[in-house]
């Protein structure tokens, strides 16, 4: 590894760390505002929508800088959304509630990614025209 490569790695690690700090803090704020399953659901679904926009923007448009993606997607959004709390809540819920929670989080989360992709496609059309 050259010095430049090391600095680049350090830069990306720093961006991911800062984004992660902010994303988890906001998830905590949401969980205080909406206690229980609803808070985790809200964070996971809105995070899916936003990552759908960013991930497909990177693929279709490419205006957002790589550094921004590391801070906003790898750092912030991936920390704002969570799988561990979601899975633990499934276990701690009554069976039927747990099953409904899984199905609804998966369905709405995947749909949110598609909505985000739609936004990115619209952006691509605007930028491309």
């Amino acid at each position: 590894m050259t010095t430049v490569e090391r600095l680049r790695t350090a830069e990306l690690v720093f961006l991911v760390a800062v984004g992660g700090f902010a994303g988890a803090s906001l998830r905590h704020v949401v969980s205080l505002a909406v206690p229980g399953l609803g808070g985790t659901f809200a964070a996971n679904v809105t995070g899916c929508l936003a990552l759908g926009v960013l991930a497909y923007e990177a693929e279709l448009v490419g205006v957002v800088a790589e550094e921004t993606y590391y801070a906003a997607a790898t750092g912030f959004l991936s920390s704002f959304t969570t799988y561990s709390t979601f899975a633990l809540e499934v276990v701690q819920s009554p069976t039927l509630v747990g099953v409904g929670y899984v199905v609804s989080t998966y369905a709405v989360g995947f749909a949110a990614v598609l909505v985000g992709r739609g936004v990115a496609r619209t952006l691509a059309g605007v930028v491309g025209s």
Partner: protein
Amino acid sequence: MNPAYLIGAGAAVGAVARYATNGYVGRVTADRRFPYGTFTVNVLGSFVLALVTFLGAGSDVLALVGTGACGSYTTFSSFSVDTVRLWEDGDRVLAVWNAAVNLFGALAGIGLAAVVAGI
């Protein structure tokens, strides 16, 4: 009420650890279409979160290690984008498989944590 910096500090470490795990697992499984990196962090992080929860850790430890580190180490958004991409690319069996094994892997991790914690 936990000081906010505990969650943030744990999350910064968790997010960087996820980035590192994804990088390593990605290199090891570079020839595979299945997103092993996200699967790895989701199962490991669910195990650790359940372990500190079942062991009755205090609120500060739960904030730092649970809500912060494990909450950030695991991710639902990348998992969802991965799954949608597999489905849209025509890898429908792999997409359904990804959706299933992340859930059952995480639940198995939580089950293992219950055994370790003696619940």
